[in-house]
């Protein structure tokens, strides 16, 4: 499992380019932060009102007035800015964030994303996910390819309540990378050591294969 996540996170970090403003979702996406190349100038946005998240604090630096959207204590980098929640989402919803990397429960071949609610279980709320999927210029979803029961999470259609329709630009799993284009879902990369057959077997969705892969 750790290895699976590492594979996904290592691939996800390649989506980040120098100079980008990026929002990382709670959970696995947060792990991407540690792997951004040191020489890059990337500003990480936290939807509770910060652009320029720094590393976790030393114990003597901990400040209860300084947390990220996952409610973890953090620090800021030089050049950071604080703002209120309306400004934060103006930034997100107005298309000023270059990239959001979000976790997923299910992704459909149309690029639909479900990642906020499992009916019958406790409803926690969507937080900022429904805003991010419509606002950020590029939406990358990171998730494991199959669930605990071995069922594909890459679906023909989502079975869980949606976070957004046709919002995913790129899906990264431990098996493969898919891009969502106007022509549909395209397999663009296989993770190291993974065969096309394995991806086909583990994927419920219908997809085409990038010619460069064949």
């Amino acid at each position, binding site marked *: 499992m750790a290895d699976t996540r590492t594979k996904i996170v290592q691939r996800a970090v390649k989506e980040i380019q120098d100079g980008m403003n990026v929002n990382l979702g709670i959970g696995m996406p947060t792990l991407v932060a540690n792997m951004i190349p040191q020489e890059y100038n990337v500003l990480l946005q*936290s*939807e*509770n*009102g*910060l652009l320029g998240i720094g*590393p*976790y*604090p*030393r*114990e003597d630096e*901990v*400040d*209860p*007035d*300084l*947390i*990220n959207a*996952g*409610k*973890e*204590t*953090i620090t*800021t980098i030089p050049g950071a800015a*604080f*703002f*209120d*929640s*309306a400004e*934060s*989402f103006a930034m*997100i*919803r107005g298309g000023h964030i270059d990239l959001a990397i979000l976790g997923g429960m299910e992704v459909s071949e149309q690029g*639909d994303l479900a990642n906020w*609610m499992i009916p019958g279980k*406790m*409803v*926690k*709320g*969507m*937080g*900022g*996910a*429904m*805003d991010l999927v*419509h*606002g950020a210029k590029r939406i990358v979803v990171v998730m494991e390819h199959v669930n605990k029961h071995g069922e594909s999470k890459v679906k023909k259609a989502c079975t869980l*309540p*949606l*976070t*957004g*329709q046709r919002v995913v630009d790129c899906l990264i799993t431990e098996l493969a990378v898919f891009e969502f284009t106007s022509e549909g879902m395209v397999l663009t990369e296989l993770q190291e050591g993974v065969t096309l057959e394995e991806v086909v077997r583990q994927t419920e969705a219908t997809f085409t294969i990038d010619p460069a892969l064949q």
Partner: protein
Amino acid sequence: MKKGKVVSSITEAIHDIQDGATLVVGGFGLCGIPENLIVGLQEKGVTNLTVVSNNCGVDDWGLGLLLANRQIKKMVASYVGENKLFEQQFLSGELEVELVPQGTLAERLRAGGAGIPAFYTASGVGTLVAEGKEQKEFDGRTYIMERGIVGDFALVKAWKADPLGNLVFRKTARNFNPVVATAGKITIAEVEEIVGIGELDPDEIHTPGVYVQRVIQGSHYQKRIERLTVAKQ
């Protein structure tokens, strides 16, 4: 004018909050929440409250105190996952819940405060959030209409205030507080420090005093941390 909008006790600050009131409340998680005002409401025991706030505290702190005390009838929030009491009361049907995307919640409060009755947003299109809402196309894209929110009372927490009600927030404790401050018919700010008139730089005031009706000096700030995370040495 030294006193201005400053009231002398939490009791006085919330004296006219009655059963059935709608409260809009600042804070994100337990960060930047009006701790003392919430404890005051718990002690006052007003019930049937409608509370609009991004989160609902934890079981034994923040708005969770009012849940535990069965004072909240309806909660409007974007994320309530930190609170087991919430789950119980929601599943038993005791608590009415309206979940709102976080950006839509912030914008609805800003709109309420700014006299905008409704606006369009893409957030929630094609999801449960869109159910029963008016849809409209602009430039080939679908949006849903969301309404502004105004509360009977707004409760916020600021770092510093002056007696005119000008507020300054600190770091990410700002969060929802400035928009919430605009969205109350009566806005009550509890603060860590009250400074003299003219001591705040007019260029650095986050919330102009026009939005604030009462200022109260808070005490014994706990500022609880939900997820203490430190760097690996």
